[in-house]
C-alpha cells in the first residue's frame, strides 16, 4: 500500500498536484459563489483546514475528497450569510420562467415528439471523462442564475429543503419549481451535448 506511486510523495508536498487541486477547487467555488474573492477565501481556508490533518491521508484521491468536503462546508457557510443577492435574481427569474416548458411539452402537457428523453445508459463512463465535465460546467453556466444556485446547494452541498429555503428566502413550492426547472434544462443540455443518442422511438 505504502509503496504505491500515489503515496510515494506526500501529495501536499507536490507543487504540481497542489496547484492543480487549487485550480479545481477555485473553479468549483467560483461556480457557486459567483464571486472571485469569496471563492478565493473559501479555497484558502479549506486548504489550510486540510493541511492540519493531511498526514492522515495516504493517497491523493482520499485527500481530494477530504479537501472538497471541507470546501463544501465553507461554501455553505458563505451562502447562508448571503440572502440579499437573491432578490435581484428572482426578478429576472420571472421573465425566464415558463418559456422552457412550452418548448418541451405540448398544450396537453405531453412531450413534444422531438423532445422525448432518451436512455443514457451508465453515467459512470461520463464521470471519468474530463471532456464530459467541461460540458457539464457549460450546461450549468447556461441555467438562470437563481436556478443554478439552488441546484448546486441541493446537489453539490447536499443541503435539505428547509435550509435552502431559509438561505434563499423562498418558499418550499418556489424551491420545488426552481429545482424542477433546473433539472429539466440540465438534463436536456447534457443529453443534447453529451449523451447524444441515436434514434428515439416515438
Amino acid at each position: 500500500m505504502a509503496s504505491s506511486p500515489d503515496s510515494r510523495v506526500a501529495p501536499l508536498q507536490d507543487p504540481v498536484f497542489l496547484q492543480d487541486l487549487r485550480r479545481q477547487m477555485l473553479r468549483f467555488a467560483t461556480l457557486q459563489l459567483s464571486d472571485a474573492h469569496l471563492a478565493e477565501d473559501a479555497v484558502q481556508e479549506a486548504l489550510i483546514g486540510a493541511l492540519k490533518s493531511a498526514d492522515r491521508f495516504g493517497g491523493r484521491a482520499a485527500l481530494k475528497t477530504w479537501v472538497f468536503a471541507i470546501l463544501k462546508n465553507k461554501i455553505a457557510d458563505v451562502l447562508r450569510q448571503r440572502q440579499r443577492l437573491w432578490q435581484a435574481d428572482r426578478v429576472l427569474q420571472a421573465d425566464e420562467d415558463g418559456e422552457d416548458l412550452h418548448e418541451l411539452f405540448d398544450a396537453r402537457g405531453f412531450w413534444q415528439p422531438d423532445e422525448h428523453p432518451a436512455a443514457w445508459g451508465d453515467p459512470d463512463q461520463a464521470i471519468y471523462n474530463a471532456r464530459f465535465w467541461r460540458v457539464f460546467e457549460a450546461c450549468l453556466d447556461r441555467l438562470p442564475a437563481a436556478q443554478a444556485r439552488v441546484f448546486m446547494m441541493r446537489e453539490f452541498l447536499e443541503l435539505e429543503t428547509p435550509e435552502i429555503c431559509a438561505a434563499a428566502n423562498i418558499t418550499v413550492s418556489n424551491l420545488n419549481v426552481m429545482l424542477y426547472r433546473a433539472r429539466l434544462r440540465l438534463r436536456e443540455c447534457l443529453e443534447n451535448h453529451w449523451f447524444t443518442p441515436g434514434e428515439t422511438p416515438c
Partner: protein
Amino acid sequence: MLNCQKATQLFSESQERPLTLKEKMDLKLHTLMCSGCRNYGRNLQALRKIARAYAKGEGASDALPPEIPKED
C-alpha cells in the same frame, strides 16, 4: 391520468421528499405507458449521481480547454 409535465414534476419532487402512495401509483401507471418519462426518471437519478461526483472533485483535469457546447 398524469400527463408528462406532471410526471416529470413528481420525479423531481421524489428527490426532495418521499412521494405519497397515490403519487407513486400515478407515476407507475404513467411510466408503464410512456418511455419518455421512464427515461426521464432514470436520467434524473444519473444527474444526481453526476452532480455528487462533481462535488467530490471528480471534475478534474485542466488538461483540456473548456469547450462551450453550441446552441443548436
